[in-house]
């Protein structure tokens, strides 16, 4: 029976590279997958592309590929990644240049495109965002990106045609892993059961160390060995869909039934109906079994036929987020932070600063759960945080200026002021028929 091994190379855009290289060197893997796109990342990348049409791919693409490419050829590992972000074609061109500079030969690079539907946004004017009901029409002038989550088909096609490096934009995360399985095992994309299993495997792998002990440790309750040196996961799967999740023995972290369960339920809603472009996956009957130390078998995944609609992320500008913080210490620290809050509130009112929403937190007291303030006499220190959303940049600036003014105009002993203003790029989604999206694969070769 044919079995393949796929390593995870990244669980988010700025993830560590060393564990990926270690897997390529010592993991005996056939593929490595770099998952680097969060919901908002592509909208930001799209803005970079608007400024420069040769830009808009992952900022760490060159850093990663310079070290990954030599191992692709020495260890015979293929790469699948969504580091193309808003511009997979430009990303492929850059990878080709890096390969040529390294005097590589016989490398085929594929760019999978079709997810970007920004130019057809007018066609969806009457559609409403699923999150808040706002019509595309109403926000059209603020929209900066529109990307459909595409599935595994383009990736599998690229591999069928001999690609060594496959670069996508907004492909769904599990599809990055499912693509190689379809290619290697000749799985039919109409086989919802296998698509469901492959999607479950991809879902477990897509967040890197989150299944190998990362984001898991809780000392005394959930102890993880050598978390500082946590390894990325390796998927071993056969053509019938039997799968194991493991890690390198030399790496830190651990794979246990508990780490796998946490990741299986991460960011899903109804476990029996996990919607992806490829399938409606069903994790509800999944079972996990620890085969040996840091090797876990996962069974029971399944699926139903896909919906035929693609979730499409719409990125749109929604003003500015102003933040400012200041610390107070010792006896009376909470009272002084409260006085500072009152000063800011009154100053903003006096100057008629236009704000959509403002929030004050007492960090160390109530910033996470909006709890009541603790017994004031016991507080050793507190950090006041002000966060406000404004449509106009001047109004955002007025908020941070008032925090800065607390040095000379506020209560005694305030220190450590930090302020920042960020553009808000919100993400909403619409559903579009799959037939509206045409996937194309472009190839380039280093001969």
């Amino acid at each position: 029976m044919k079995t393949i091994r796929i390593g995870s190379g990244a669980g988010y855009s700025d993830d560590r590279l060393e564990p990926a290289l270690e897997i390529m060197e010592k993991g005996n893997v056939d593929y490595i997958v770099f998952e680097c796109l969060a919901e908002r990342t592509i909208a930001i990348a799209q803005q970079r592309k608007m400024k420069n049409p040769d830009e808009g791919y992952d900022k760490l693409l060159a850093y990663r590929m310079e070290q990954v490419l030599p191992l692709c050829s020495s260890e015979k590992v293929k790469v699948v990644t969504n580091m193309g972000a808003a511009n997979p074609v430009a990303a492929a061109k850059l990878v080709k240049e890096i390969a040529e500079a390294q005097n590589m030969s016989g490398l085929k690079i594929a760019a999978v495109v079709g997810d970007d539907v920004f130019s057809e946004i007018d066609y969806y004017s009457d559609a409403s965002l699923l999150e808040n009901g706002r019509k595309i029409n109403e926000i059209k002038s603020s929209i900066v990106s529109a990307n459909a989550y595409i599935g595994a088909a383009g990736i599998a096609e690229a591999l069928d045609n001999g690609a060594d490096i496959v670069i996508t934009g907004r492909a769904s995360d599990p599809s990055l892993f499912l693509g190689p399985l379809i290619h290697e095992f000749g799985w039919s994309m109409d086989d919802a059961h296998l698509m469901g299993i492959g999607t479950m495997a991809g879902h477990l792998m897509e967040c890197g160390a989150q299944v190998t002990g990362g984001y898991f440790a809780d000392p005394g309750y959930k102890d993880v060995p050598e978390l500082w040196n946590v390894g990325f996961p390796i998927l071993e799967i056969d053509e019938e869909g039997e799968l194991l999740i493991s890690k390198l023995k030399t790496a830190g972290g651990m794979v246990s039934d508990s780490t796998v369960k946490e990741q299986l339920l991460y960011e899903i809603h109804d476990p029996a109906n996990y919607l992806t472009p490829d399938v409606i996956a069903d994790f509800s009957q999944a079972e996990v079994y620890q085969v040996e130390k840091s090797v876990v078998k996962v069974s029971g995944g399944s699926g139903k036929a896909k919906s035929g609609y693609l979730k499409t992320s719409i990125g749109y500008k929604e003003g500015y987020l102003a933040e400012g913080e200041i610390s107070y210490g010792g006896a009376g620290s909470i009272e002084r932070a409260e006085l500072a809050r009152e000063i800011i509130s009154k100053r903003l009112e006096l100057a008629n600063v236009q704000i959509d929403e403002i929030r004050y937190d007492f960090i160390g007291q109530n910033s996470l759960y909006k709890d009541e303030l603790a017994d004031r006499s016991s507080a050793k220190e507190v950090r006041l945080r002000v966060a406000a959303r404004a449509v106009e940049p001047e109004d955002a600036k007025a908020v941070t200026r008032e925090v800065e003014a607390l040095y000379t105009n506020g209560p005694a002993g305030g220190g450590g002021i930090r302020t920042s203003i960020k553009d808000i790029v919100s993400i909403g989604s619409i559903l579009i028929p799959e037939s509206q999206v045409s996937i194309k694969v472009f190839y380039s070769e280093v001969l």
Partner: protein
Amino acid sequence: MKLREIAHSRTGDKGNISNISLIVYQQEDYALVEEKVTADIVKEWFSETVHGDVIRYDLPKLGAFNFVMNDALGGGVTKSLAQDMHGKSLSSKLLDLEI
């Protein structure tokens, strides 16, 4: 007893929806959690921050539950004014529940 003594948890986010898994360490504690940690109890526990419905999905084979909390992240990751805009720390609050 705090829930933390018998279960572990992780939070995920999609837009303005937060999901929190709750997984028992020992299968024999599943029935207790099933009875005590209802969707209504969880909605009440997070009443300061969760403004929509809470749905609980049960996964007996994993010894796990998945709570899906709507309108829970101050408008969503991208526009929330919260310091923890993803609501990543909500799992720790769930485990602080007395049962």
